[in-house]
């Protein structure tokens, strides 16, 4: 009963959602103490749900739209926990928790139709493709969240207003480092994921149609991603410009994701 576990996970993530909403106006350590363990438990439930749904189906079901959303949520949470372990800050949670909640909510309240029906598929390549691409998405999202936090912290420091400088965000340079490091981690993952995807497509269809919306938009997203890493690495872009770029990359990722609904070769079963 993977759906039950997923709903348990959703219940846990609700605590995180409440925390994120309250954190905007309140300062409380108590909430932090409750929210983090809740989110951790949510991750465990979600992991169980995903594993079980793969085992029950006896094949790779990650490619169904709901399981992918659930996997993406789990990977984003993993990235968040990684940041928390290294920097001891839960601030990205303000942005991350609501997203994880929404992804899991959608996943927990729907049917689970199968997509992968081609028996000749290279199963290993497909798993690599999905996991790597989603790790890239998760990293991109953390980077996007970090650049938003950077803007908020920068504005508050520049405004010099005593009330705004009291926000409990991590130092500017730490936020910057979180954003950049997750970019650095996400980029190779995204690149390898795309390569794995190409291998799968080649094997299934025998050719790569560059004009297929999914492939075209994925490559576009990859290009924006690379541009982001490049400008950050080379020119040290941060602050406003980095945030705009991260927003661009994030939008490109969303568009590439939505291409699933009208691509000829890469689509989830109707749900």
């Amino acid at each position: 009963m993977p759906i039950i576990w997923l709903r348990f996970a959703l219940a846990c993530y609700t605590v995180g959602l409440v925390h994120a909403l309250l954190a905007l106006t309140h300062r409380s350590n108590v909430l932090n103490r409750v929210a983090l363990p809740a989110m951790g438990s949510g991750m465990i439930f979600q992991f169980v749900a995903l594993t079980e749904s793969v085992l029950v189906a006896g094949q790779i079901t990650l490619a169904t739209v709901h399981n992918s959303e659930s996997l993406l949520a789990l990977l984003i949470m993993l990235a968040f926990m990684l940041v928390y372990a290294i920097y001891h800050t839960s601030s990205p949670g303000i942005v991350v928790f609501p997203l994880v909640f929404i992804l899991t909510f959608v996943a927990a309240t729907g049917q689970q139709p199968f997509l992968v029906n081609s028996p000749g598929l290279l199963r290993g390549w497909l798993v690599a493709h999905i996991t790597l691409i989603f790790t890239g998405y998760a990293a991109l999202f953390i980077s996007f969240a970090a650049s938003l936090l950077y803007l908020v912290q920068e504005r508050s420091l520049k405004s010099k207003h005593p009330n705004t400088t009291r926000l409990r965000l991590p130092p500017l340079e730490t936020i910057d480092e979180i954003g950049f490091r997750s970019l650095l981690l996400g980029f190779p993952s995204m690149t390898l994921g795309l390569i794995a995807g190409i291998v799968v497509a080649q094997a299934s269809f025998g050719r790569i149609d560059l004009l297929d919306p999914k492939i075209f938009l994925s490559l576009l997203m990859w290009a924006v991603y690379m541009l982001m890493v490049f400008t950050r690495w080379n020119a040290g872009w941060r602050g406003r410009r980095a945030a705009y770029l991260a927003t661009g990359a994030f939008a490109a990722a969303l568009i590439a994701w939505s291409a699933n609904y009208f691509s000829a070769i890469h689509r989830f079963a109707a749900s």
Partner: protein
Amino acid sequence: MSLQIIGVNHLTAPVEVRERLAIPESRLADSVRLLVQHPGVNEGLILSTCNRVEVLAQSANDRADLRGFLHQLFTVPASEFESHLYEFSEREAIRHLFRVAASLDSMVVGEPQILGQVKEAYATARAVGAVHSQLDLLLTRAFAVAKRVRTETAVGSSAVSVASVAVDLAKKIFGSLQGKHVYLVGAGKMSELAARHLMAHGAESIFVANRTHDRAAQLAAKFSGQAILFEQLYETCDRADIVITSTGAPHAIFRTEHGELFLNRRKNRPMFFIDIAVPRDVDPEMNKLDGIFVYDIDDLQQAVSSNVADRRREAERAEEIINLEVTRFQQRLQSLDVVPTIVSLQDHLETIRQAEIDRVRGRLGELSPEQENALETLTRGIVNKIMHTPVSTLKTAATEPEATTVIDVVRRLFNLQEKKR
């Protein structure tokens, strides 16, 4: 038990008086010994800091003459300090001690040193045996209350000086100051102070540029830093993460174009300008550049006043905590107070029982072990029945304000002679 505090502090006495009353550390132990030898004083402690001199004493029943003790202790004529003295007793004394330890009675509310000073005074008094039972309990509680105030309120968390506000802001930008470079432009006292603060928080190195190069060299030497010719200011400034300017220049020496140049060379790594010069050295427009943060003296002052106001608000919350803790501590003392009375009562009745058995034993003649046993059980039963009501009344009263009255009544009724404690 009777608790008393007498003393002067920064609110009641000017520094001229406080400095004459201050007890040097070398004399503190002897002074505490003198205190516990004073008539009526059981336990005692003396706290002497630059802002206060206070004597805390616990006396047996009636209050000890602490003013008399001060006359004996100080060589200063009484007329010079009498009018500045304050005195607290019982509940108010406990509250005062808790407030002092929690830094609510400090000149800068929330400053952390006072707790350490109270702890030192406690250690000294303990070492000479002047603090053992009751004061030990009180002081240990005071430390716990101070800790509670510090963790549950933000009374000591915000910076309340220009230099510490600057450090706080730098930490908000850079996180740790480890490995950060500081550039002093102009070698004034104020910028030296700010630099000292930044270095104390881990900043790595200091550059100094001043129109008079010798002065720059002198100041750089103080921090093992590097003096730089004023003419090379713009070529070298991008090396610094934090720039403190305090020149007497009539107009801005850092303008937007300089900021852009620095950012370009630094690959947009952020820079923090602390401008304490009047007229200002840094064009405020520079604050609009991505990655450059400019704070002038008014901005820093504003942050200080806002933090001071914050502390005041938090102090009100802290006072509530203190009130609760004082009540809780008093209840605890009272519940401790009934125990000796119960013990005396038991002893008293047991003595009567034994005496009565001895008195009638002769008339009863030889008793079998069974009879002996029955006699014992009978008399004990009577004693326990008699004791039951007063003991339970004492226990109930222990946590109530009338505890001392109940204790007194029981003692008078049964003519219990020994001291309560």
